[in-house]
């Protein structure tokens, strides 16, 4: 009996360890590719060429960037709260990493199918704001502090509509497991059954990842660089990469919950999954290079006064329709 339990734990652990290693690799490479993609998208939207010298189409450019950033001095300003200051950039990666564990990349390609998958993602994605707060507070800089406080207010405001829009999907699929939700979309994707929920979810995602037009925590024209004003070198790069990884995770979650995850004809599931995810990421890039930034009170008003009642109504309507 005990032997069996040890066996199961052992197998699980090895599976999780291998899975985590792979996820880590995927995230890092994806984030680097995304920095390249952002430059390319921005370039073409702004009628210029963007990176093209390093490697074919400038594809090796992120590697060059990372090497450059590794060579930079990691300056520690005199008056920072050292433990917090050092912890911030490291902590920001953890939630993203854990979130990927429950994402099904294909029918059989998933690190762990937890039966409360959505809860895991929601719980951990809320953590990233903590590291922003730590970084902003630890920097001992007014701009950083304002930036991190903005981030907290923003995340609280957008977490609720995000959660409510997800609940509508859970109502329909009767499951919290990511894989079962994907399987429930065999016939029709939830984006067609729940368009309002998808819209709310995606807007909230953009806000959660601090992207334009909701990039207030780092709005450079107001707060210089927001919560990472005092960070340099590789520590800054970690924040920079974390932004792209969190874009990736919210897009992956949106794909899983609304766009049928790995489902799709002919091509293997992984391709469909990644294709849909990157399409959503591209949408976010598109937003950034098109819209100006909203003001802080407008941002909060939009969430509390529009998104939240709307998501409530959507939820009630979904529940009523399902029961009828």
């Amino acid at each position, binding site marked *: 009996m005990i032997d069996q339990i040890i066996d199961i734990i052992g197998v699980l652990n090895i599976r999780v360890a291998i899975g985590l290693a792979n996820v880590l690799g995927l995230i890092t490479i994806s984030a680097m590719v995304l920095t390249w993609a952002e430059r390319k998208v921005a370039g073409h939207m*702004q*009628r210029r060429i963007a990176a093209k010298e390093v490697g074919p189409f400038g594809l090796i450019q992120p590697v060059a960037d990372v090497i450059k950033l590794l060579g930079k001095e990691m300056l520690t300003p005199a008056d920072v709260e050292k433990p917090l200051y050092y912890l911030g950039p490291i902590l920001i990666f953890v939630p993203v990493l854990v979130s990927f564990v429950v994402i099904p990349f294909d029918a059989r390609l998933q690190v762990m199918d937890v039966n409360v998958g959505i809860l895991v993602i929601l719980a951990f994605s809320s953590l990233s704001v903590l590291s922003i707060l730590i970084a902003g507070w630890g920097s001992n800089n007014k701009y950083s502090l304002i930036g991190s406080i903005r981030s907290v207010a923003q995340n609280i405001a957008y977490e609720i509509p995000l959660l409510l829009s997800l609940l509508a999907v859970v109502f329909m699929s009767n499951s919290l497991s990511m894989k079962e939700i994907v399987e429930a979309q065999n016939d029709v994707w939830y984006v067609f059954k729940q368009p309002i929920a998808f819209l709310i979810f995606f807007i909230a995602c953009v806000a959660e990842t601090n992207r334009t037009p909701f990039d207030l925590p780092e709005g450079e024209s*107001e707060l*210089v660089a927001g919560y990472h004003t005092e960070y340099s070198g590789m520590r800054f790069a970690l924040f920079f990469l974390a932004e792209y990884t969190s874009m990736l995770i919210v897009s992956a979650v949106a794909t899983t919950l609304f766009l049928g995850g790995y489902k799709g004809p002919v091509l293997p599931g992984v391709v469909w999954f990644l294709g849909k995810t990157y399409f959503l990421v591209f949408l976010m890039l598109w937003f950034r290079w098109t*819209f100006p*930034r909203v003001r802080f009170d*407008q941002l909060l008003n939009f969430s509390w006064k529009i998104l939240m009642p709307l998501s409530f109504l959507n939820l009630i309507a979904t529940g009523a329709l399902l029961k009828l």
Partner: protein
Amino acid sequence: MLEKIRAELPELSISEVSYPERGYHLAMDAGREQILKVVGFFDKNGFYLEDLFCVDYVEYLELVYFFNNHCGLFRVKTVVRLEPDKPTAPTISDIYAIAHWYEREIHEFFGVYFENHPNLAYLFLHDGLDSYPLRKGTVKVPEEDRKLLGSGAYKESEDTFFVNLGPQHPSTHGVLRVVIKMDGEYILSAEPMLGYLHRMHEKMAENRNYAQFLPNPGRMDYLSALNFNLAYVETVEKISGIIVPERAQYIRTITCELNRISSHLLWLGAFLADLGGLTPFLYAFDDRENILDILEGVTGSRLTYSYFRFGGLFNDVDEKFADGTRAFLERMWKRLDIYDQLITKNVIFINRTKGVGILERDMVRKFGCSGPVIRGSGVPFDMRKLEPYAAYQHTDFEIPVAQNGDILDRYMIRVKEIETSLRIIGSALEKLPAGPFNAEKVPKKLKPPKGDVYHTVESPRGQLGVYLVSDGSETPHRMRWRVPSYSNLMTFPFLAQGVLIADAVAILGSLDLVIPEIDR
């Protein structure tokens, strides 16, 4: 108006002067005691304080007040003579808000004390200075005055804190520093700190001859160097009586308007970057590049052109210039549609700008604002129409005016001004006469006759005035620059009070400041 002044201010000696020669209509001598009454009279009659400065005539100091009217042009120069040692004058900062800074400036450069002035701290100069720089001869700064140098210490309380917006901040566009007292995200008070780019151009002018000063004005406002260049050249021409040939006038108009468009385009990009939209910046620079190429073809430089000479131009334009300008006009009209779709129709942009940073009509007068800032508040005040210079009277154009005075209106005004400029260039190009581009017999070393002259042009940021006093020698006795951004910036502390920091950044952007021009 003249009768009214005579009736209400009978004790003053008033003399009419020739406007085309001197650039102002009336000269008045007021005593120290009468000046408050004079200022009150002009304030009551809707005049604004165009400029306030000091001239050192060694035997006495002269405070010069320029009053002007927004509707019909009527410029009055009022003079107060002061004793050279320990000069004092009453402050008028409670009547005209802009005088607050003008008086501080006079105090630090000439040592004139203004009684009851709320804060005579130095505006531009740094701590190490021991004499008043614009006085002729050395006048030591007394010890109690030196204590005013540098900025004061700021006390933070539990709920409020101070933030230095600048001098190195992405949205101050240059080295403007604004000390902001904040309560959370809200601004309680804002105080601009000037002088980070102060180069004392007015003193430089007194130390070199007229031709040597030619490159300087362009360095004051590097975004509209031609307009500044033009203001200087026309002032000197006015005082020396040089007649400029028609062709040169037209070319001056065309190049100045091209410069205006390039300045507005750069503002457009930078302003949207302030609001967080980064793409319009690149679009605007793409168009601006065209203008720079055209201007480089005739002037030889891309930013600080010193293209105009006394009596004409550095060189004539060719067919290539005309063709290039025509091609640009054609292209720019199409591009304006793109800007319209990308920016003007954007909901986020409108929400950010509508009803924010409202400047009332009376306020713009008290602050002496000009340019798109005043036209956004419903005053059709444009030097190109009111005091036509170069070839503007031969071109047909309308002054765009908006009514609300908010950021959106200032934006719309500037976009419409690009259209206006395109029209002016188009019609000026059509009418461009043949002939010489330089006046004959302009001496290498100019020695203008004794006297003073005031001349204004409309720079992209507003009314740019030059006051020149010649003592008959090769160098000016005093050259005063009335710069538009100075008075426009002065409104910022009042606009920023009680708004969010994001709005303050938008307001600062909408004023279109060029810091080296303010600091001079």
